[in-house]
C-alpha cells in the first residue's frame, strides 16, 4: 500500500463522484459519495504508476485473442419465443415491456 493516497484524495472531488454517478445512472447517498470519493482516489493513486511507462509507438491491444474481422454466414435462425423473453420482465403490458413515459408529453 502506498502511504500517501491523501494527496490524490483531495484532488478527486465529491462533485466528480456525483457526476460519474449521474452518467452511469446510479443513485448514491451522501455517505456513499464520500466513501467512493476516498476509495476511488486511493485506487487511482496506485494506478497512476501506469503513466510513467513509455508507450511511444506501441499499438494498443484491445482484445484477448488475436482475431480480426470474424465473419459469420448470413443465415437466419429462429428467435427466442416472445413469451419466454417477456417472462422475466419486471413489468409488462400485453407484449411490451412497461416503463414510465420516456418523452415529456406536455
Amino acid at each position, binding site marked *: *500500500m502506498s502511504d500517501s493516497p491523501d494527496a490524490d484524495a483531495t484532488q478527486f472531488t465529491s462533485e*466528480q*463522484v456525483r457526476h*460519474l*454517478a449521474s*452518467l*452511469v*445512472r*446510479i*443513485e*448514491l447517498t451522501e455517505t*456513499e459519495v464520500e466513501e*467512493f470519493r476516498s*476509495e*476511488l482516489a*486511493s*485506487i*487511482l493513486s*496506485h*494506478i*497512476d*504508476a*501506469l*503513466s510513467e*511507462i513509455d*508507450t511511444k509507438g*506501441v*499499438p*494498443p*491491444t*484491445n*482484445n*484477448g*485473442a*488475436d*482475431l480480426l474481422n*470474424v465473419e*459469420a*454466414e448470413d443465415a437466419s435462425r429462429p428467435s*427466442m*419465443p416472445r413469451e*419466454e*423473453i417477456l*417472462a*422475466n*420482465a*419486471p*413489468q409488462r403490458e400485453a407484449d411490451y*415491456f412497461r*416503463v*414510465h*413515459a*420516456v418523452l415529456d408529453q406536455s
Partner: protein
Amino acid sequence: MTADADFDLLSITLADGARRLRAGEVSSRQLTEAFLDRIASTDDEVHAFVTVTVDAALAQADEADELLVRGDAVAPLTGLPVAVKDVLMTKGVRTTAGSRMLDSLVPPYDATAVSRLRESGAISVGKTNMDEFAMGSSTEHSAWFPTANPWDLERVPGGSSGGSAAAVAAQQCIASLGSDTGGSIRQPASFCGVVGLKPTYGRVSRYGLIAFASSLDQIGPFTRTVEDAALLLQAIAGPDPLDSTCYDEPVLDFSKHLDRGLDGLRVAAPREFFSEGMDDDVADAVEAALDLLEANGAIIDRSPSMPSIPMALPVYYILAPSECSANLARFDGVKYGYGARGGESMWSDMEATRKHGFGREVKRRILLGAYALSAGYYDAYYLQAQKVRTLIRREFDRVFAEHDVIVAPTAPTVAFKRGAITDPYQMYLNDIFTIPANIAGLPAISIPGGFGADGMPVGLQFVGQRLDEASLLGVANAYERLANWPTTPPESVGST
C-alpha cells in the same frame, strides 16, 4: 447394482467415475444421491450453492442409467455430477450472478458451456455462489451469503468462483465450472486446494456467460485432478457460431497429452513473479515445488525478466472496470431482473434500480470504469492501459520463444479469514500473479502445490502459450503425480 461400493463415492474423479459407471460398479443415481446428500449435510456450513437442483439432477441421473444399462456408446461424462457457477445461464434454472439485480432471473436459454456439459452427459446438481457479477477475490461480495473455505470454515474460499472451488473441495460434486477474468478460477482453486484451469482466451465460448470484462473473461473447470481438468475442458472447448471471439481451431484430445513428462521441459520462473508481496510460507512451498520439478528432469530458468509484469494489476484495474461499466449498463430494470418502480420518471426508476440492485463493489467498479473512459481521461487511462497490455503480451512472447511453460505462485498468500481485508486495493492484490495471463489471453492452471501457514493449501501456477493447454496439462499432471498432495481437507466438514 448395490450401494456397498468398496470405494468412497465422494472422492471419485470424472475419469474413474466414467469407468465405474460403464462397468456397472455404481449407478449414476447412487452417485448423484451421494453428492446431493453431501450437499444437504454440509452446505449449511460451506454455503457453496445458491441453488440446488435436486429433482432435475435425479431425473438426469435416471436417464443416464438407462443409457448406461443399454450398453450403447455414451457421451464421455455420462452420469457424472458437476456444479455450475451462477454466472452461466441455465435454461429454466434461476441464475443470479450473485446479485440482487438478478434475484428473479430464470433464463430462457443455456450458455454454450452448459449445453456442452449436458451433451457430454454430465449432470448439474446446482448453481454455485460467487462474488457479485464475478467482481471479488473472496466470495464475500455475494449478495446472498459468503461461502466458507472447507479447509477452515472461518476463512474465505477465494473468488470470484468461490462456490465452485469450495463445492469441489468439500466433495459436494466431482467437478464444477467457473469463470476467470483476473484469477477468479485459479485463486479460489489455490485457496481451496483443488485444480483450476483458465483456458486460452477464445478457447471456450462465452455465449450465455453474464459478461464482466469481455476482453478478459474466460470459462474453465475446477476438478480434483489434472486428468479431470483435461476431460472437462474437452467437453466445453471449441468454436461456437454464437461467440465470434472463439478461436476456430481444432481442439486436441487433451487426455492423450497428459503423459509427456518433465524430461528436458524448459520452465521459466520469471523474477517478477517471485519478487514482491509473497508470504514466506507460500514462497517456501513454491520453492519446494520448483526443486521437485528440477529433480525430475525439468530445466528451471530463473533468469527471465518481465519488467512490465508489475504493471499488470494497474492495467487490469483500468480495463476491467471500463469494460464492466459498459457491460453492466444493460441492467436497467426494464427487460429482466430487478426493476424499481414508482419514481417520478423513467430515469429515477433506473437510478433506483441500480442503487438497490447493485452491491458496493460493483458500484465502485462501474464508477471507476466510467471515470477511466470519460472525456479527458480516456487517453491517460484506457488507451495507455491498452498499450501497456501490448508490452506485457510481448514480454510473454519473448519468454515463450525459449521456454515451454512459465511457473509462478497462484496467489501471494493462503486463504485469509473472512472479514480480514476491507481495503479494496488490498483485496485486488490477491490477483497480482493471476492477472498477467488474462491480460495476455494465455492459458493458465493452478494446482495444489503443498501447504502453508495453519495447514492451508498453496497453489502452484503454470502459464502456457496461446492455445497450448496440452503442455500446461502435461506439466501439471507430471507434478501432481510426483507431489500427490491431498485435495480434500483431512477433517472434512460434515464428518462429525
